[in-house]
Every structure is written in C-alpha cells, then in structure tokens.
C-alpha cells in the first residue's frame, strides 16, 4: 500500500469519526433540549393546577375590589352632581315661591284642589291647611267657595301646602318639600339622563 493510499485511508477514518462524533453530540443536544422542554411542560402543568387557582382568587379579590371601589366613586360623583342640581332647584323653587310667580300661584291652586279633593269628604268637618305665612292670604282667596271649613296655619315650609283633616285621619302633603321628596326617585333618573347623557356609564 502506498503512503498516499494510507494517508487517504487515515483521512477517511477521521472523516467518519468526526461525522459520528458530530452526530452523537447533535443527538445529545437534541435530547437535552427535549428533557428541558419536558420539564418546562410539567412545570407549567403543575403551576396551572396548583398556583393558577390561587392567582385567579387573588385577581378576583384585588382587581374586583378596585373595580367595585371605582364604580362606587363614579356613583358617588354622579350623586354629588345630581344633589347639586336638586339644591339649585330648591333655590329656584324658593325664588318662585317668594316672587309669587304665575307658575307658583298655579301650583298653589292645583295643590289646594287636589288636597281638598283628597282630604274632604262627608265625614270631614274641617281641614287645616299649613302653608308658608306669605301664601296664607293667596290661599285664603282661593278657598272662598270651599265645601268644607278650612283653617289656615302658618308653617315654615318653602311653599305649597300640607293639609290635614282636623280629626287627623286624612292628610295630603303638597308642600314643595313633600313633592320634591316624593318625585325624587323619578326626577333623579331624568336628571341623571340629562346630566350624564354621552358623558359616561359606570
């Protein structure tokens, strides 16, 4: 065998050895990756089954509380604004009552009609009308033709009137304060619609 042939054989031996070694190392790297990936997958599974439920509970508690507190802030802010509107409305109603505007006098008349219709009856001899002192003379002028005896009493109300039968069995609350209180639930909704339309929803 010539030295060239021997040299060629040596090269072939080393070429095959290197190829085999590379293959062994490549396979080992692949196996190592597979082992790590498998561990990661199992860890994920363990985490999901053990920690995730606790995380979910934490999220519900912490974020849930923040959202509910935030919503409460929005509701409080809206209530504050609606209350401002009601306070302003009371100012306006006080001015209407003090100035004896046409709208206010009409309101007094309607209140009186309704009150007498509700409180009077065959078994009612006398009714007492409680009104603001400044309204008493106007009301006196309106009850001239009343079918029942009427007594007028002054009361520290803004306006309108509260009417009671003398025996106390029937009462009608038609003061501005009473009407505001009675209408508040409906008015709150309408006012909120007016104020917050297009602003935002909690």
């Amino acid at each position: 065998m010539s030295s060239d042939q021997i040299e060629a054989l040596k090269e072939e031996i080393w070429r095959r050895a290197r190829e085999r070694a590379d293959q062994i190392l490549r396979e080992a790297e692949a196996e190592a990756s597979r082992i790590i990936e498998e561990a990661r997958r199992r860890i994920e599974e363990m985490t999901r089954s053990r920690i995730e439920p606790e995380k979910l509970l934490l999220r519900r508690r912490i974020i849930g509380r923040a959202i509910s507190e935030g919503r409460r802030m929005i509701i409080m802010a809206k209530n504050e604004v609606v209350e401002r509107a009601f306070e302003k409305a009371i100012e306006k109603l006080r001015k209407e009552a003090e100035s004896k505007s046409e709208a206010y006098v009409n309101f007094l008349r309607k209140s009186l009609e309704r009150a007498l219709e509700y409180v009077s009856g065959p078994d009612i001899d006398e009714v007492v009308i409680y009104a603001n002192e400044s309204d008493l003379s106007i009301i006196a002028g309106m009850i001239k033709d009343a079918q029942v005896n009427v007594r007028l009493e002054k009361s520290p109300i803004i306006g309108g009137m509260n009417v009671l039968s003398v025996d106390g069995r029937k009462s009608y609350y038609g003061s501005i304060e009473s009407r505001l209180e009675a209408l508040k639930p409906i008015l709150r909704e309408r006012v909120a619609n007016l104020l917050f339309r297009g602003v935002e929803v909690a």
Partner: protein
Amino acid sequence: MSIASLLLEEKKAMMYVEEARRRAQEIIQRARVEAEKMMRETADEEAARRELWEYAERLKEEAERIMSEYRARAEKIKAIPDELIEKAANLIAKEVLSYEL
C-alpha cells in the same frame, strides 16, 4: 507508514468518538440536573409563595391604575358644566310645580 500506523489512527479515531460519547452523556446529564432543579423549585412551597406574592404586587399596581382611571372619570363627572346643572334644576323645579308627574 504501515498498517500498524493505520490501526493506531483507527484507535485514536475511536477514542475521539468515545470522547464525543462522554461529552454527550455530560450534556444529557446536565440537562437532567437542570430539569430536576427546575422541578424542585416549582415544587418548593417558598417559591410558590414568592411567585404569588410577586403576582399580588403586580395586581396591586394594576388595581392602582384602575383606581386612578376611575378617579379621573369621577373628577370629569364632577366638573360637569354649570349650564347643565342649571338645566337640570329648571327641569326639577318645573316638574315639582307642574303636577304632571
């Protein structure tokens, strides 16, 4: 050069491959150790507690961001223009006096 030197070369090449096999075993063994370490850390209660604590801290930050957004929205609501309040007050006064409701 002779057949003997070829045999020697063959032996060296085999040792080279054996060395690769040894290194391959090391690689696989290192991966197994690493995988076991990862699994141990996951199974470790302290690590779980730490992870939950860190998660809770992140949630608290998120909660604070949510609250800030709500605070800003609440302030925007409170800053509603006076004209609108006036309009609402007129509506209330009108309904109280009108007896339509």
